[in-house]
């Protein structure tokens, strides 16, 4: 998926889906991401790993998409993990308490390892 300033790359590893966000997640691009994530959630993955390493910017509109994904996946017993946020995105996540409710990891590898039992 590509919407000009946000590119989303998704791949599947075992029962985990890894979604990499590249660019800016703002009030406009969050709509497209929401649609993309809803499609992923229809497959009810055990773990959805959101790779933030190349995400430069996020606003509250983007945070709402992440919250909605967490809520939806929780119903089917799945987990949404956040990985590798840069300094700015990390500060937004910690200011809003997201680092307390989402499992957060430094790398995608660490997230996969922590969820090995669920996705193995």
């Amino acid at each position, binding site marked *: 998926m590509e919407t000009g300033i946000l590119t989303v790359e998704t791949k599947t590893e075992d029962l985990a889906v890894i979604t990499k966000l590249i660019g800016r997640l703002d*009030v406009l691009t969050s709509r497209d991401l929401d649609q993309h994530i809803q499609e992923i959630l229809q497959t009810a993955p055990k773990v959805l790993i959101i790779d933030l390493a190349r995400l430069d910017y996020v*606003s509250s509109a983007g945070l709402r998409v992440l919250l909605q994904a967490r809520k939806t996946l929780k119903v089917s017993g799945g987990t949404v993990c956040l990985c590798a946020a840069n300094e700015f995105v990390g500060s937004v996540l910690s200011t*809003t308490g997201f680092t307390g409710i989402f499992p957060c990891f430094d790398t995608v590898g660490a997230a996969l390892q922590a969820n090995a039992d669920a996705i193995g």
Partner: protein
Amino acid sequence: MTFPISEARLKIELTCQLEEVGHATRELEQFAERNRIPSPVMPTVQLALEEILTNIITHGLASVPDPKLSLSCHVSGQKLILEVTDNGPEFDPRKMPPVDITKVGERDVGGLGVYLVQKMMDGVDYSRRDNCNVLTLWKIWR
């Protein structure tokens, strides 16, 4: 439409559409580059601008027949000051009830945007002038 007044001041008239948020944040980024504002400051300021404009466009001006919205910004020393003016009903975002972020995972929490603005900017001021909301935000760098 953009009316650069000087290198150290920018004024933008905006239409009442969400697409304008991207336009405004890009203009602000270019203004910051021209004025050599340290780049780590800018995502925070762009975030504040996006949150405020989104609120005004989707709520404040949504039912105003002749909506008017403008942004001006200038630099004073090591301070970037934004002023957002709209002719919507009186609304002081500083008076919004505080967000309980410990409940953020339990229910739909509104007001996250304004909460972020208040936490991440160095100052937020509000006044009602000539039947318009005038919101002033600033960020200081060292």
